[in-house]
């Protein structure tokens, strides 16, 4: 295919990706350095109240938004440099936390950004092995049962993956909230009352389990498809060589699935770094927030209807930096293996 024809085919897609992905990135990078605020002016106001001997007058200074001729507030955009980043990263507070007066890590994690970063990273790294392990176990199990019941099994397994993430999180939350069915079961089991939504770590546990529940089907489907391409002869020769089941799993099946495990790990890291819906579904913002939620929260209008666009941009850029550190090595690896094949 000539380059011209090729460009004709990919042009619409390229235009969309440039305008709606590349350009916004640029806007965010620039936007994080500028702040747009209404211009305030200070006015002196004298108010007088009639009194017994005469008027009592008080003068007070008040600041109000300056209005233009049309009655709209005047806004001005100023270059603020790294102020938004400093506001998020709070280097002074960090230094204090690790000085003699501070309490180290626990002080650090009371700062929003570091709390979000901590949660996002542990979330991604803890769920990763669980999803791969459980997905592999379900795939191996389904692969051994009769063909006729595999269809319904796959159907049931797919549901947690297909369901809207916010709704899935909610449906698990409703099992626990108040005197929910599973809270009652836990109480019967441990003979103590456990309120799952009263402290951070139980909520975090629910969020982790929800994500494992939600993503395992994906790992399962990929591994199950991989098992179908397993060479029967290799397995049989392993049996002839006297390999036990466990040895077969370790020496034949896992190496065969290795590229798929890397693939699932890559996709899972990408997706769980973007953890967000769990915070909404479990209403965990008082205890646990993620990096995406931090940005989302800045973008949501506050009581006065203002959105903290500059701070949102700065937190978005920091989120992006995390992606670069975490995923670029993995993406480069994929890229190299693709090029070797091409």
């Amino acid at each position, binding site marked *: *295919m000539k380059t011209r*024809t*090729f460009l*004709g085919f*990919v042009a*619409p*897609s390229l235009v*969309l*990706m440039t305008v*709606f*992905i590349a350009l*916004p*990135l640029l806007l*965010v990078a620039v*936007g994080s350095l500028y702040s747009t605020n209404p211009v305030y002016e200070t006015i002196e106001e004298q108010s007088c109240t009639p009194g017994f001997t005469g008027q009592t007058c008080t003068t007070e200074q008040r600041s109000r938004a300056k209005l233009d001729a049309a009655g709209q507030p005047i806004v001005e955009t100023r270059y603020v440099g790294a102020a938004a980043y400093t506001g998020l990263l709070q280097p002074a507070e960090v230094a204090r936390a690790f000085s003699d007066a501070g309490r180290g890590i626990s002080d650090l994690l009371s700062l929003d950004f570091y709390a979000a970063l901590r949660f996002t990273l542990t979330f991604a790294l803890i769920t990763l092995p669980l999803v791969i392990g459980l997905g592999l176990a379900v795939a191996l199990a389904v692969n*051994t*049962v009769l063909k006729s019941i595999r269809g319904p099994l*796959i*159907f049931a397994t*797919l*549901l947690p993956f*297909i*369901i*809207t*993430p*916010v709704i*899935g999180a*909610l*449906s*698990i939350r*409703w*099992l626990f909230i108040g*005197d929910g069915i599973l809270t009652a079961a836990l109480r019967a089991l441990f003979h103590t009352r456990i309120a799952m939504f009263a402290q951070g770590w139980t909520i975090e546990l629910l969020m982790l389990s929800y994500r494992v*529940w939600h993503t395992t089907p994906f790992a399962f*489907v990929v591994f199950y*498809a*991989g098992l179908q391409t397993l060479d029967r002869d290799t397995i049989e020769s392993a*049996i002839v060589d006297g390999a036990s*089941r466990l040895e077969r799993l370790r020496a034949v099946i896992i190496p065969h699935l290795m590229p798929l495990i890397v*693939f*699932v790990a890559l996709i899972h890291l990408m997706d769980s770094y*973007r953890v*967000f819906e769990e915070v909404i579904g479990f*209403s965990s913002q008082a205890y646990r927030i993620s*990096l*995406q939620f931090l*940005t*989302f929260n800045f*973008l949501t209008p506050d009581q006065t209807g203002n959105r903290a*666009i500059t701070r*949102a*941009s700065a937190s*978005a*850029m920091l*989120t*992006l930096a995390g992606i670069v550190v975490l995923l*670029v090595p993995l*993406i480069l690896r994929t890229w190299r293996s*693709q*090029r070797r094949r091409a």
Partner: protein
Amino acid sequence: MSDARALRPPLWLNLAVAGFLAIWVTAALFPLLWTAVMSFRLPIDALSSDPLTVLLGPATAAAGKGLTRADLGLATGLIAGLLLLPTRLGRTGAAVAALLGLGSWLACGLLDIGTAPALGLTLQHYRAVWIDHAFYRNFENSLIITAGVVTVSLTVGTLAGYGLARTAGRLGFAILTLALVFRALPHSVLVTGYLPVFLGSRDLLAPLWQAPGLGPFLHLFSAAPPTLYGQPLAIIIVLVSINQPFTIWMMRSFFDNIPTELDEAARVDGCSHFEAFWRVIMPVMWPGVVTTGLFSFLLAYNDYLVTSLLLDAQSQTMVPAITQFLNRDTSSTDQIEAIAAAVSITAPLFLLVMVFQRQIVSGLTAGAVKG
């Protein structure tokens, strides 16, 4: 034969596998089924800590809302009939079962036995959600957005995927790598870029509307530049773009499976590249299109972040709209209404998996098995 016996797992392993699968399937289905059951009960039953109360709904039944024994008999007959249909007993068995159910229902009605509700069941929360709180508007918005996203996404993505599958050039490779990087971007980063522009688009676009030549042309569509915030059309384009990296990777892997000889034959017959695509490739690419369409549908339908930030209350889709029920979560009725709304959102997805299970599986593996 000895090989086959060696491959067959021992009994203990079979039992362990069966037990493990039973636990997994229960864990996979339980939260969904349980919330579905809760949505049909009055709050006093639904929020009870006794599982049997939630399942049977005695208070709901006592309130006169539910299925009578006669109804249950009829339902059993009909379900048994449906289950018998694919078996050897076939139509005759199905008809007998259904008739037995119907007969018992009629007899109960005539003799006035078992006409008090036995199994609590109420649709009042669904009525409240859909009619009183006008959830159908959110449903319409979801429908518009998802239909738009699927159509545009497939049109653009299919062309690009075809182009990429039929070129081995450096440029195509660069595009695919870039798409992979874009795929990893958190959506909040992109929305941060859109939001100020969308909110201020009326002022930002004003020069275009006053420009000589272009201005009068744009005036044909609207008198003033649009505010993109809250515009379903704008959100459709945004979601399509966010989805593009995934779509082109997927379509490319499907086109890779269609032999090049097919379009070469068409080219020999004198077709241009586009004609070859239109006349020869289009008819054979539907499985790939259906699968990719499914995933575009899921992205648009399930989205919370983008739609909740870029749409206003009038144009809000179903998933973000559910938070209005949550934030009002003060009385127990509100809570069950939120559950009913959640079940309403899930039901179409349930059907989707039933109909398209095979395509979903093939779509999930398309990228993976071939790398």
